[in-house]
Structures are given as structure tokens and as C-alpha cells.
């Protein structure tokens, strides 16, 4: 604190300081004004309008009485408004063949939260090894892990599924049996494992970019104090990389929550997530817009909450390393 006052003291003319501040502000305003123009703002508002209309239409539909939604456009509410909340309670208790939307909401939570934790931990362990332990062919291996994004998920589904359900049998010799989870009521194990694996290449890449940027003096100091890699990882890397971890957690949460394909293939019918119930809602019931509309907005809730809670980390962590160079 004392250092700060000493620095400020040399400005002995208070008026000039104030003037300087005013000038700077004026200057900044001027710069701001010149960089944004009226036309640009109007264009931006137009884009925002077109981007919001579809969602807005469905939002309005979700509050309209069921009979109206089938016969008239949602824009007619502006001339004769008629709203109800009944669609939401109806949506929660209806669903696809085996699950209601409310049940599959819980399933979605039970799938997404563990997956985010698994992939963050496994990926950050690996990323730490890449960043702070020297070994042969390190760069080559790192690029190899990044390049694994090349493998489309679809390519891995069938072999992985047969590994899970039938185990490992080579040349008719049975070595390992599969996991017998199909008949279990709420088994998420296979979905957890599949999601974690598919998220790893990108997670390792992004987290490595961030972890490698941590100043080596910090790590060296800890080493001198006698900390091993375990302590350094737990006590220094995890807290310092928190923004990157948080940003990847948001991305991963949104991706896993919104996934349809992996869950459809790997989850037993009683463990299907919300996306699946929503999709079969539109399939089995024809176009019952009031149910689908309410269901869609219920399914958006969780990712939006997560995004708003962690949004200040989002961009900062995501861009670490990417904007360099």
C-alpha cells in the first residue's frame, strides 16, 4: 500500500491530473465511437432478431393451450392472448416408450455430472505429464493425441459396444467377459466410460495449452520445497488451472447433456437421457407441439444454468494457447 502512495505523490498539480483523466476518457469515448457505427449496430440487432425468433416462437407455444397450438400460429397470441402453465406439468409426466421426461431429466443429470468429473481429472493428469515431465517423443505423442479427434464417434460405437457387452474373445478363446448391465435398472457405467473416452482428445489438448502456460518458476519453487509431482498437481496445478477446467467443464456439460447418439447406443432403456425422451416424444405422438415445446424448454434449463454460473471463465480458459502466435 505504501508503495502505491509513493508512486502517486509526484503528481503535485491536482488539476492537471483531473484534466488528464478527463482527456483520457474523452479520447476513449472518441475511439469507441469511431470503431462502432450506426449501420453495424442495426445489422447486429437484425441478426440477433432473426436468431431469437425461432426460439421465441417455441417459447410462446409452450405457454399456449394445447388445442390452440395445433390450429393457429403462435403469433396470433398478440391479437388474442391466452396462456397456461399446464403444458409444463403435462410434459413432465409424458414421454417416450419407457420413461417420462421428469425421469429422464434425472438420468441426464446422472450421466452428465460424473462424466464431466471423469474427463476433467483423467485429461488433466495426462495434460500435466505432457506439460511438466520430460520424455521421449513427447511432441509426437501429443500431436497424436490431438489427431485422435480424427476418429468419428460413429466409427468407435460398434466395437466399443461389443467390447462392453460381449467382452474380449480372440480366436474363440474367451478371455474377459463383458459387463452384464443390460438388465440393471439404472446403469450408466457404459455411457460414462464412452463419453469420457470420446471427450479425451480435445480435453487433453485444451488443458495442456493452459497447464503448460503456468510459469515454471512456480513449479520449480515447489520442487525445491520438497513437493513431488502429486503435491504439485493437487496443490498448485488444479487451483491455477481452475479457469481452464471451468471452461472445459461448461463445454463438456453442454455437449454431454445435449448428446443423443452415444446415449442411444450405450444406455439401457431405463437410463436414457432427456434428449432421447424428447426425440421419442416427437416421434410417437406425431406433432404435439405443446408437449414438445414445454419439454424443449425444460431440457434447456440445466445447460443454461451451468453456462451462466461459469460464463466468466468460459472464454478465458477456452482460448488459452489458441490465440498465441
Amino acid at each position, binding site marked *: 500500500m505504501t508503495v502505491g502512495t509513493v508512486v502517486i505523490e509526484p503528481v503535485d498539480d491536482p488539476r492537471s491530473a483531473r484534466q488528464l483523466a478527463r482527456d483520457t476518457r474523452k479520447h476513449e469515448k472518441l475511439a469507441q465511437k469511431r470503431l462502432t457505427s450506426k449501420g453495424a449496430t442495426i445489422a447486429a440487432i437484425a441478426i440477433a432478431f432473426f436468431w431469437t425468433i425461432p426460439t421465441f416462437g417455441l417459447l410462446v407455444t409452450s405457454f399456449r393451450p394445447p388445442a390452440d397450438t395445433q390450429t393457429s400460429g403462435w403469433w396470433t397470441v398478440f391479437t388474442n392472448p391466452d396462456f397456461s402453465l399446464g403444458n409444463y406439468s403435462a410434459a413432465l409426466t409424458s414421454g417416450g416408450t419407457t420413461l417420462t421426461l421428469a425421469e429422464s431429466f434425472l438420468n441426464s443429470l446422472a450421466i452428465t455430472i460424473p462424466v464431466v468429473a471423469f474427463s476433467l481429472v*483423467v485429461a488433466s493428469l495426462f495434460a500435466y505429464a505432457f506439460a511438466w515431465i520430460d520424455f521421449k517423443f513427447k511432441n509426437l505423442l501429443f500431436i497424436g493425441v490431438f489427431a485422435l479427434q480424427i476418429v468419428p464417434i460413429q*466409427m468407435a460405437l460398434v466395437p466399443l459396444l461389443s467390447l462392453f457387452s460381449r467382452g474380449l474373445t480372440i480366436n474363440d478363446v474367451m478371455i474377459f467377459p463383458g459387463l452384464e448391465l443390460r438388465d440393471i435398472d439404472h446403469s450408466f457405467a457404459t455411457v460414462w466410460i464412452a463419453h469420457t473416452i470420446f471427450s479425451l482428445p480435445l480435453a487433453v489438448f485444451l488443458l495442456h495449452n493452459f497447464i503448460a502456460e503456468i510459469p515454471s518458476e512456480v513449479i520449480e519453487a515447489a520442487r525445491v520445497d520438497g513437493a513431488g509431482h502429486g503435491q504439485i498437481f493437487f496443490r498448485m496445478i488444479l487451483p491455477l488451472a481452475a479457469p481452464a477446467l471451468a471452461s472445459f467443464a461448461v463445454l463438456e456439460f453442454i455437449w454431454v447433456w445435449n448428446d443423443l447418439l452415444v446415449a442411444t447406443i450405450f444406455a439401457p432403456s431405463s437410463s436414457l437421457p432427456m434428449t432421447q425422451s424428447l426425440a421419442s416424444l416427437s416421434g410417437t405422438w406425431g406433432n404435439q407441439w405443446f408437449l414438445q415445446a414445454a419439454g424443449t424448454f425444460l431440457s434447456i434449463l440445466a445447460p443454461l444454468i451451468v453456462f451462466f454460473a461459469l460464463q466468466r471463465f468460459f472464454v478465458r480458459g477456452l482460448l488459452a494457447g489458441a490465440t498465441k502466435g
Partner: protein
Amino acid sequence: MSEVKVESGTTPAPNRTELDAVERRQREGKRHRTTMIVVAIGFILVAALFIFMITRPPLEDPRPVSLGVSLNSFFQWLGNLGPIVQIPLVLIVFGVVVGLILLLIEYAPRSGRGYFWLRVAACFIIPVVAFMLLRPYQGAVIYVVLIAVILGALLFFADLRARQGAGYLFQLIIFSAPAVILLLIGLIYPAIATIFASFFDKTGDNFVGLENYVWTFTNPEGFWSVINTIIWVLVAPTFATVIGLAYAVFIDKARGEKALKILIFMPFAISFVGAGIIWKLMYDFRQGEQIGLLNAIVVAFGGEPISWLAVEPLFNTLCLLAVFIWSQTGLAMVILSAAVKAVPIEQMEAAEIDGTNAWQRFRNVTLPGIRSSIVVVVTTVAIGSLKIYDVVAVMTGGRSNSTVLAFEMVNQQQRFQSYGHSAALAVVLFLFVVPLIVFNVIQIRKQREIR
């Protein structure tokens, strides 16, 4: 004082220390060579055991063997609980495992008698327990355990004689083992298996050569999925990036920037299933009074209502693309907006003083400044568009020639049980992704050289 003395004492004999160093290096090299030989022999032994295991006559109806607890029984126990109870339970178990791993990494590499035995125990116990958790079958269990023991012994031996000191290899392997094992099981093995399967027929028993690939390019479903995928990967990244960038620049430092950003970002947080429903309402087609906005507009201008998603060829694909672009623009905008803000304000001001207009400043200052971010965005959206499944599945189900590779391969395999066709489609998709990744790898290398 004493340090100075010691130093002056050693200076007269530089030759000897040099000789010592050479000798030590030679000895180390020799030691390293024997280590390599022993490890190589170990691996040959493991391979021999493996071959022996799989060529032995198979047992009739073998039972799985476990230590009482296995991965299977744990997941079964967990699966019988309610979904919400499972979350904390599995997180606690996972936390305990990770905690043990970190403790091992922290303590095992230290030097000392106790730590030495800790490493011995870890090297032998962990592989054996890991394999036993998978419940090997009766006939295989002895080989599996033997392989685990040999692998553990090899790790311990190589670690003990590592150049960087005992414990170095141990901690490296523990750090990377979880990710490496998962990647091997879940991505590398399946990719290789799929490439093999693409040369076999439906059941996977008979070799058919390139027949599945011929099918891909001649059958209408296969053909259209290739054409549409090419359209997707060309159109989606272009539009998402251009609109996202334009929007990011337009709203930069504008009033209400945050709210404007959230409006565009929101579609990204909506699942493709949800987006499909939102847009199906937009595209809705019926006789009489329209409830879809687009057709309502068409009718209001005196046109005939259009069944948007059934217009072939290509038009319905563009309608599906609109949904994808609508969703991905938010991600592009958020990343590019951060990049635009990172362009130094001084450069902008300098360009302004030089009398450039807004477009010139954008072209010559902003664009070069955000180049690497644009690469990230284009690649992410392009890979996303190649792998698109949900939009097609929810909106058209691939009807009216709107199918794409990633959808068609799941379709072939789920509906027609045609694994060969599905695998060939996957390989074609894989070939589409290759150039993108190669381009990115070159970019990463360039960046690393700059650093």
C-alpha cells in the same frame, strides 16, 4: 572458506574428472543397453504367453473368475440404486481412486527403503488387481495373471534403472495410464476394427474386398450421404464463422453487448434435438391455416405453402444446415469476440491516424490479429458438421435424400444390421476429417516454433 579450499583442491586434476565422466557415460550406456535388452525379452515373453493363451483349445463353458469384487459387480450394485444417489457415490469412489493415484505419485518416487518397497508392491499389485477386476475366464486366468506379473516386473525393473533415477518412469506411467488405456480401448482399437470390418460383409465373416465402398458411391443412400456431407462441411463452417465474426465485430464495445451476445449464444446451449423441434415448428407445412412461421409468410405474400424438408435435391439439406449454423454461430461468435478484443487498441488507433476506413482496418489489422482463432473456429465447426447425426435424425430421419454419412452409418447398422456398409461409410467419413486434422497439426507445429 572451506568451500574455496575444496575447489582449489580439485582444480589440479581436471583430467581425472574428465576421464571419470567419460567412463561413467560408457558405463551408463552399457547399463542402458542391458535394461533395453531385458525389457525387450520381457515383452517377447508377454507376447509368447498371449499367443499361447489364444491358440490353446477353448474351454467348454468357462466361468469368469474374480476376487469377490469386480468392475461388473460394482456397476451392478451401483445401477440398482436411484439415478441421483449414484452421482455422489460414483464421484466418491472415483475421488478415492484418484486420491490413491496422487498419493502414489507423490510418495513412491522418493528414495529410501520404505519407498522402494512401496514401488515393488505397487508394480506387482496394481496390474494383477486391474486384470482381476475384469473377471478373466477360467481357462485364461492363469495366463492373464502371469502377463500382469511380468508387466509389473518389467515396469519396476525399467523404472529402477531409468536414467532420470528410480521413480521417474513410475510416476510418468501412472500419470498417463488412465488416459492412455481409455484411448486405446475406446478410440484406437475401435478405429482399427472398423477399418477391418469395412472389407467384410454384413455379418463380418466373409471378406468382400472393396464391395462396401462401391456400394457407398453407387447406392442412392450412400451417394447422397457423401454429396450432402461435402455440402455440410463446406457451407456450415463458412456461414457460422462469417456471421459469428461479423456479429462479434458489430457489437464490439456497443451498448448492451452482453445481452446481445447471450441472444446469439443461447442456441448453442440448446440440444440439436431441441433445435430440431424449434425449427420443425418454423418449417411446419400443412393445408389450411399455417402454424409454421415460414409458410405463414409465404402464404401472406400469396404463395403456396412449401413442404420445406421434402424439397429435393439439396434444398432440404440447406434447410437442415440452417439449423446447424443457427446453433454453431454462437460458439464462433463467443470465441471470435474474445479474439477481437485481444487485438491491441494501439494498432487500431495507428491505422486510424493513417486515414484508413473501417473496412481497411478490419482487413489489415483485425483479421491478421485473429487468424489463429479463426482456424480454431473453422476446424471445430467443420469437424462438428462432419459428425452431425442428431439434426438429421430428429428432423427428416434421412428421408428425401437428406441423409449424411454420420447419420447413414448409424442408420445402416441399427436398421439394416449391415455392419460392413456402416463401417465403409465410417471410413469415408474418417478420410474427410484427415485433411482438417493435418492442417491443424501443421498450425500447432508452427505456433510451437514461434514460441
